[in-house]
């Protein structure tokens, strides 16, 4: 009996899984999107940039890709990967080898034979057209150099990687928070989330405890440890553990009569208030203030913080979509089949609300890239060790004549930001054909 019931449920589940994903929908969106020539070109340029970001080490490097030296073949760029990963070693006498000065039998250099942090003191502040002190035209600094002789082209190639990674990952963080909170607010509204008293109380108790054990107790380790971020992760783990424990306990205790009574949680009000708070604090100000506080900010901390402050738009969007979808019949059908709420949200509601979120994501990536570039321009953000487009541009402010330091990085930022804007625009037209 029980067995048969399970089997029937399995079959139903299979049918549900197959149905609402509706491959037709995305196919149709793609067909609409393809009609927009500009948007298609934006996608092409984006893949070009992605290739640059992926193969940055092969495009700009101070080591040759392949060379033949004293009868032996070397693959220095590949070997560098192995050495960095800790599995390979440089051959005898090659760890500090001056690759530029060697006499090769044959050699294949990367397109730009400089790494982004190579100093070339003989060639500081050289414009692309200035005479440069290089031994062959092959080694010219094609896009000029900065005050320390660092190659601008190499910096731009390295900066592509940073920009794309920042844009994508910070929006991934924002999308995670935004989709989660927006879905909760939209699906449950103010009246439909019922939580047992014991869970509410235990969580209220666990929050301060989690703070206490993660921050107060560990303050000495957090402040004194040489590896702040590892310790921060451990602290987060503690906090999560305590919260998890409280919820497990609540699951056990909710069978008791008084503790098991339900309270209704006004999720929607709470989430909307939170969004209002986030929106009334200027993002740039919050970002700068957090960056000033945390010790040794790096690319990843910048990324996470940008994500943490830019989820509100996504949350509002998905909330609105879900409010619309919740009233549709197939959700009612899913509920009638006895699926639990999480399953309905994750498998049936969110996939159908994703279209508009993609649009906000595309515009959000453009915004995040712009924000990071501006932070680097201010000398904050990714730290001085990291070459970014914004930092190259900021060098131009201190050296008024060096137009190549302003034009090229700025152009790169502009192109990247506009292709994401074009993609967002194309998606808008494709997903919502009423407009435009």
């Amino acid at each position, binding site marked *: 009996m029980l067995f048969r019931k399970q089997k029937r449920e399995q079959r139903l589940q299979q049918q549900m899984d197959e149905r609402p994903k509706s491959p037709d929908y995305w196919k149709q969106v793609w067909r609409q999107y393809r009609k927009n020539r*500009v948007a298609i070109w934006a996608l092409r340029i984006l893949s070009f940039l992605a290739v640059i970001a992926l193969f940055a080490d092969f495009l700009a490097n101070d080591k040759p890709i392949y060379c033949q030296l004293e009868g032996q073949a070397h693959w220095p760029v590949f070997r560098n990967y192995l050495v960095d990963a800790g599995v390979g070693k440089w051959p005898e006498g090659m760890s500090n080898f001056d690759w530029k000065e060697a006499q090769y039998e044959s050699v294949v250099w990367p397109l730009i034979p400089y790494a982004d942090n190579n100093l070339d003191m003989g060639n500081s502040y050289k414009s692309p057209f200035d005479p440069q002190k290089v031994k062959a035209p092959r080694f010219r600094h094609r896009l000029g150099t900065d005050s320390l002789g660092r190659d601008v082209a190499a910096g731009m190639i390295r900066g592509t990687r940073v920009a794309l990674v920042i844009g994508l990952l910070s929006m991934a963080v924002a999308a995670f928070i935004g989709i989660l909170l927006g879905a909760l607010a939209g699906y449950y509204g103010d009246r439909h989330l019922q939580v047992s008293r014991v869970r509410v109380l235990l969580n209220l108790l666990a929050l*301060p*405890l989690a*703070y*206490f*054990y993660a921050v*107060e*107790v560990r*303050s*000495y380790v957090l402040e*004194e440890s040489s590896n702040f971020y590892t310790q921060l992760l451990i602290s987060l783990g503690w906090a999560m553990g305590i919260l998890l424990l409280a919820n497990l306990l609540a699951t056990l205790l909710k069978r008791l009569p008084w503790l098991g009574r339900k309270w209704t949680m006004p999720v929607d009000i709470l989430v909307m*208030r939170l969004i*209002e*708070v986030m*929106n*009334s*604090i*200027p993002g*740039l*100000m*919050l970002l*700068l*203030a*957090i960056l*000033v*506080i945390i010790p040794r900010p790096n690319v990843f901390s910048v990324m996470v913080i940008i994500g943490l402050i830019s989820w509100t738009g996504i949350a509002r969007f998905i909330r609105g979509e879900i409010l619309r979808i919740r009233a549709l019949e197939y959700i009612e059908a899913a509920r009638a089949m006895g699926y639990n709420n999480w399953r309905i949200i994750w498998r049936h509601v969110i996939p159908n609300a994703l279209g508009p979120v993609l649009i906000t994501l595309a515009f959000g990536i*453009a915004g995040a890239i*712009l924000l990071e*570039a*501006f932070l680097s*321009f*201010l000398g*904050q953000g990714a730290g001085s060790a990291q070459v970014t487009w914004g930092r190259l*541009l900021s060098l*131009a*402010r201190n050296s*008024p*004549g060096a*137009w190549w330091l*302003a*034009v090229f990085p*700025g152009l790169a*930022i*502009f192109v990247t*930001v*506009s292709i994401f*804007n*074009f993609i967002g*625009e194309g998606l808008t037209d494709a997903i919502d054909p009423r*407009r435009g």
Partner: protein
Amino acid sequence: MFLYIAKRIVLFVPTFLMVSLVAFGLSQCSPGDPVDRLLINSENDINWENKKQYERDYRYKARDLGVDRPPFYLSLLPRAYPDTLQQIVPPDRRRAMRKLLDQYGNWDAVHQYMETYDGFMAHFSQLPDSLGKDDLINLQRHFLHLEHIYKVAAIQYEWEEIGKDLEKNPELEQQIATELLELKAAYANLQSTARPSDLMIPSIRVNGLDNQYHNWLVAFLKGDFGVSLQNGQPAGQKIKDALWWTVVLSLLSMFFTFLIAIPLGVYSANRYGQWFDRITSAGLFMLYSLPTFWIATMLVMFFTTSQFGEWANIFPSVGLGNMTASDPFWPRFWQRLTHLILPVFCLTYGGLAFMARQMRGSTLDVKRQDFIRTAWAKGLSPHQVHWRHNFRNAVFPLITMMAGILPAAITGSVVIELIFNIPGMGLLVLDSILAKDWPVVYIILMLTAVMTILGNLMADILYTWADPRVKFDL
């Protein structure tokens, strides 16, 4: 309507409190000591002679700023922590004591160690110069340093250094031997009586209303904005000075934005699909994606110097010119105006692109409605249809954008003010944050929150004016 406004204001209270908590929390997390920065003798240049004076000044200033109080209504601290930690001066000593406590969890022993240290220093300072002036100075440096360190290795190292110095001067060693032993014994006692379990047990302290957060919030509501930590100037005065230029910039750029964007948006919507519309749409989209800080940098680079030829030196260099308030009005006005051209241009083009696109979109939406067809059918002139019927119903994005003016006037534009060196709010925000001047930062944060909410409220009221069908549900 009034009920609605009242409800909005009541709803704003929790938001306002949250923003104030965020601002306050940020300042609490920030490293560095606010009191020390305001004192003339900073902690780095105190020595044995002016130590007492420094401590007195510090206490006085700390009471003045209210930072000797507990930070919040409640505190959740390990049981090992005393209530009086906040009142220990100087800050480096407080820090060292806290870190010792974090390691050993026994406040009494920490306290005793520092008291023994004070006793030792009192004795040490009485020693006559005849024992060897250079040796005394050298030792004093080591002992003063001992007050600030808390790691086992660092303290061991310092003891070893002191031992080496004393070996060279046996007479001096004899004079302080017993006291030195006591000090070492106190440190050993601290290590042996460690109670790490006390660090793991939480305890809640109720601090009452006399705490930093409460005092600050009450002062803010009364209009007392505190002093800037950078130079002790009143924060309110600093903001008032900066606000003027930001308001001038915002108003000018708003004016031009509206002046150009509205006709452009409406005009291209009415030529939907024609070449004019296509070109302006593409152009506006490019303009919208142009990073302001890039364009501003380029303009400053190419058009304010003669680096690239005399013809390119069109605009004056950055800043607001060198005339002061005593110069005659008209030349001063003219000079300021020429200095504002580039900043206003940079502020305008981004907003303009956004605004015109919005305007075009909403005009297009309205254009397809039935009542527009009716208006045409009635035989109204194109001008009447476009402006009286179509535009009037497409002003929503304008109103939404107007709501952004108020908060924008408070935060200013960091980019423009930085690049063009205009002493407005944006530059003040940036400077204050980078200098960790929290009193100024909070005030700006709070004012921005208030302005955002006022702007939204204003927009809501204007929506009802633009479209009487808009009703507020209470």
